[in-house]
C-alpha cells in the first residue's frame, strides 16, 4: 500500500489564474518569499538599480517587492544551521562584513558519531561534510537581518501576505494573487474579511522555500519537471538554553534510525552551539521512509535520551521548537528549466540543496544573486524581461556556476542511500573519491509517496514525554508560537477516507499533531484535520497530501530556529 494511491483533492491548475482585480497593485519585480534566496535576490537587484536610475524608473514606485506569508521575515524560517559565508560575502562585498551578520561564531571544531542505543563511536568527518570556515547561525535571525538590509536598500517587504495563485496570461507570468484573510471555516467571508489583491510585476521570482505552493503549480503548468521527482526530508529541531557551552559542531548517524534497506531511514542528527548559553539539536529523516510508525518528532525526543546528547542538555531548558522539510533530490530533481516567461525559480523551491554537505542556504543566496543579475540584464533597453527565454541566462549561470558544479558532483549520493546505510555509505564514499563519477549514470528516484508502507513496533520505544527532557507534540506546537485561527478555512488537502495504514502514517509523520484517526468503517478510517496546529513544514505534500498556504500571518513565530 502506498500513500500515493489516495491522492488529495487538488489540481495544480487551480493555482494558476488570470489577473482579475480591477485595481491591481503594480510593482517592478515581485519576489515571493523573504528567505535567504528571496532577500538576496531583492538586495542584489537594488544594488544594481542604484547605479542604473534609468532602469529603476521604469520599474515604478515600488521597484522591488518581497511578500512573505509569515507575520514578519524570519517567522517561518528554520534550518540547522552551519552556513558557508561565500555567497553572503559576495552579496555584501564592500558594504558589510560577516562580522556584521548575526552568526553565533565560526565552527571551532566538529565531530561525527555513529550512535547505537547506548554508545557513540567517533568516525572521521566525511569530506563532503567539513565545516571549516563556516559559521553557525539561526536562519530565522539571519532572515530578519537580511530583511533589515533589504529595507535599508529600498526594498518593500510585505509580511502577512500569502501568494495564493500565480497569475498567467498568454503563457507569461504576470504576478501573484495574494490570499484572502478573515474567511470562516467554510470559506465564507467573516466579519473582517480582507480580500486578496493582484500583485502584478514585470518579473516574478518564486523563492518560497521547500514545497513552494506556487512553485509546484508553475512546474506543473510550464512542464518544468526534472529528470527525477523531487524528494524531501523532514527536520525537527529544538533550541535549548544550557549551562555549559558546546565547543563544536556535532553530527550523528545511526541510532535512532535503522540501517536495513527495507526501512529506508536516511538521515541523522545535529547539535550546534549557539553562543555561550544556547545550542540547537535536531533530527532529519528522509520522507522516503516506509514505517507507518515512524515519527521524526519522537525520534528527536528519543535521541535526546542518548547519554552523549542528554549530557549536553542536562540542567538546560528547551526554549524553541520547530519543523520544516528539506528538498533532497539534488541535481537530477532540479526543474528542467529554472525559468519560464516572466518567472525565475530560486533556492529551496527549486531544490538547490547539497545533501551530503548539508548545505542549502548559501546556494539559495547564490541563486538569488544570479536571478537578480539575469533579470537586471533582461531589463536593459533592447530586451523584454518576460520574453520566452529572456531569463535563460539565469538557468545557465546556476548550472555552470558553483551551484551546478557542487550539485553535479554529489548527484547520486542521496539516492544510493536507498540501498541501506552500509551499502549507501560505501557508494557515497566511492562517489566522493571519484568526484561523482562512481556510481555512473543517474540513479532513478521514486516519489516519497510511492514508497510501499510497512509496520514495525517502532512506536513502542518512543519516550513518554516527561516535560523536562522530552516533550509531546502539542506543547511543542505551543512553543513555536503558532498563531493560526481556530476558525480559519482548512488549508490542508488530503483524502480523508483512507486505509488505517495511511492514516496512521500521517498521524505519526506530522510533527504538529494535525491529523487524527476517528471513525472506522468498511476497512477505511476517517482522518480528522486540526489545521490550526499546522506549522507548515510541508511533510504532508511529500507523503500523499497537499499543503497550501493558510491566510497571511498564520503559522509559527520562529525566532531562534
Amino acid at each position: 500500500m502506498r500513500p500515493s494511491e489516495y491522492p488529495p483533492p487538488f489540481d495544480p491548475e487551480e493555482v494558476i489564474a488570470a489577473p482579475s482585480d480591477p485595481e491591481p497593485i503594480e510593482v517592478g519585480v515581485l519576489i515571493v518569499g523573504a528567505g535567504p534566496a528571496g532577500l538576496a535576490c531583492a538586495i542584489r537587484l537594488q544594488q544594481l538599480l542604484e547605479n542604473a536610475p534609468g532602469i529603476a524608473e521604469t520599474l515604478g514606485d515600488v521597484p522591488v517587492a518581497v511578500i512573505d506569508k509569515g507575520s514578519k521575515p524570519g517567522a517561518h524560517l528554520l534550518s540547522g544551521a552551519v552556513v558557508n559565508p561565500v555567497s553572503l560575502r559576495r552579496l555584501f562585498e564592500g558594504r558589510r562584513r560577516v562580522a556584521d551578520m548575526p552568526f553565533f561564531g565560526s565552527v571551532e571544531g566538529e565531530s561525527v558519531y555513529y550512535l547505537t542505543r547506548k554508545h557513540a563511536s567517533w568516525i572521521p568527518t566525511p569530506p563532503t561534510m567539513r565545516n571549516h570556515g563556516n559559521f553557525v547561525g539561526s536562519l530565522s535571525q539571519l532572515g530578519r537581518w537580511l530583511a533589515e538590509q533589504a529595507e535599508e536598500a529600498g526594498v518593500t517587504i510585505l509580511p502577512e501576505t500569502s501568494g495564493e495563485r500565480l497569475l498567467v496570461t498568454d503563457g507569461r507570468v504576470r504576478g501573484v494573487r495574494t490570499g484572502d484573510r478573515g474567511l470562516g471555516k467554510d470559506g465564507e467571508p467573516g466579519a473582517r474579511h480582507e480580500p486578496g489583491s493582484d500583485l502584478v510585476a514585470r518579473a516574478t521570482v518564486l523563492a518560497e522555500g521547500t514545497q513552494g505552493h506556487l512553485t509546484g503549480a508553475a512546474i506543473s503548468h510550464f512542464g518544468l519537471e526534472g529528470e527525477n521527482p523531487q524528494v524531501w526530508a523532514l527536520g525537527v529541531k529544538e533550541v535549548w538554553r544550557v549551562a555549559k557551552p558546546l565547543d563544536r559542531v556535532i553530527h550523528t548517524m545511526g541510532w535512532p534510525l535503522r540501517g536495513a534497506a527495507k526501512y529506508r531511514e536516511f538521515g541523522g542528527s545535529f547539535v550546534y552551539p549557539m553562543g555561550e548559553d544556547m545550542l540547537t539539536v535536531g533530527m532529519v529523516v528522509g520522507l522516503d521512509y516506509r514505517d507507518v510508525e515512524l515519527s521524526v518528532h519522537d525520534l528527536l525526543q528519543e535521541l535526546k535520551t542518548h547519554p552523549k546528547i542528554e549530557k549536553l542538555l542536562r540542567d538546560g531548558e528547551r526554549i524553541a521548537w520547530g519543523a520544516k522539510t528539506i528538498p533532497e533530490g539534488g541535481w537530477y530533481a532540479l526543474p528542467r528549466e529554472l525559468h519560464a516567461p516572466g518567472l525565475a525559480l530560486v533556492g529551496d523551491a527549486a531544490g538547490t540543496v547539497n545533501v551530503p554537505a548539508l548545505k542549502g542556504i548559501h546556494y539559495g543566496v547564490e541563486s538569488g544573486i544570479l536571478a537578480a543579475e539575469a533579470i537586471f540584464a533582461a531589463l536593459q533597453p533592447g530586451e523584454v524581461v518576460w520574453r520566452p527565454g529572456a531569463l535563460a541566462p539565469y538557468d545557465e549561470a546556476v548550472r555552470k556556476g558553483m551551484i551546478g558544479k557542487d550539485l553535479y558532483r554529489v548527484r547520486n549520493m542521496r539516492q544510493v542511500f536507498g540501498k541501506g546505510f552500509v551499502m549507501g555509505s560505501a557508494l557515497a564514499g566511492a562517489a566522493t573519491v571519484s568526484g561523482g563519477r562512481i556510481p555512473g549514470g543517474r540513479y532513478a528516484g521514486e516519489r516519497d509517496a510511492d514508497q510501499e508502507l510497512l509496520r514495525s513496533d517502532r512506536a513502542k520505544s518512543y519516550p513518554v514525554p516527561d516535560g523536562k527532557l522530552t516533550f509531546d507534540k502539542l506543547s511543542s506546537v505551543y512553543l513555536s508560537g503558532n498563531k493560526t485561527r481556530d476558525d480559519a478555512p482548512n488549508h490542508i488537502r488530503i483524502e480523508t477516507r483512507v486505509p488505517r495504514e495511511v492514516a496512521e502514517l500521517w498521524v505519526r509523520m506530522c510533527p504538529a499533531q494535525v491529523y487524527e484517526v476517528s471513525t472506522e468503517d468498511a476497512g477505511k478510517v476517517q482522518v480528522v484535520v486540526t489545521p490550526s496546529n499546522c506549522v507548515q513544514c510541508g511533510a504532508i505534500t511529500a507523503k500523499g497530501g497537499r499543503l497550501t498556504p493558510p491566510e497571511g500571518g498564520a503559522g509559527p513565530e520562529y525566532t531562534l530556529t
Partner: protein
Amino acid sequence: MKIAVCVKQVPEAGAAKRIDPQTKRLDRGGEAGLNAFDANAVEEALRIRESSGEGEVVLVSMGPSRALEAMRKALAMGADRALLLSDDALEGSDLVATSRVLAAALEREQPDLVLFGQQASDSDGAVLWAAVAERLRRPLVSQAAELEVGDGKVRAKRQTEFGYDRIEAPLPAVVAVSDAINEPRYPSLKGIMGAKSKPQETLSLGDLGVDAGQAGEAGSQTEVYELSPPPSRGETVRIEDDGSAAQKIVDYLAERKLI
C-alpha cells in the same frame, strides 16, 4: 478630530518569555509585536474616524527604537502617524513614571480623544489609562464594550462585574476599550505597503521637557526585589474509581471548604 491611541510593543506570544535575573525586568530582547489588545483600540479609532468622515489617528508609544516596528502594523491598518517616546533613561519605568511621560507627550499633541486597549499582555496591568487621565485632568471611561463619539461627547457601554453601565463624558476624554468592542481589521496590502512612508517621529525626554530623574527607574516609586519559583501546587492526590469516586471527591472538597 484628533484621536491618540496609546500602544505598546510586547514580547511575541510564542517567544520564550523570561525575566532577566540581572535587571529583574522582563527580557525584551526577543521578537516583539503589537500588544494584541491595542489592536482593538486602533480599530476603534479607525472606525470613529470613518464614521465621522474626518480626523487624524496618531499612535503614541513608549519603548526602544524597535518599537516603531510594532507600530507599523497599526499604521498598516490605517493609522496616520506614529510617535515614539524613546530614551535610555526610560528603562525600568513604573506606572508613575510611564504615565508622566505619556501624559507629557499627549499634552503636546492635544488630542480630542485618547484610546487605550484592554491590558498589556506583558505586565497584565489594567491600570495605565487611569493614571494618564489623572495627569491630563480629563474624564475617564474604562472597559468600553461599545463606544459612540458625537456632539462633543463620548457615550460608552462600560462592562463591569455586574453588567453594563452606560457612561457619558464630554470631550476631551480618555477611553480604555475592552477586547469585546470590535474585531480588528487585517491590514490591506496597500496599507502594508503604505505604512513605511507614513510619518514616524521619535522624541527623547529632552524633546518632551521631562527630566531624566522623573523617568525610568529613577522616576519610579516601585521596585522589584527577588524572583522565585511559585509555590508548587503540591502533590496530586490520585484515585481510581471503584464506584466511590464521587463520594471521595465530595469529601476532598468539603475538607477544603470548597463546598
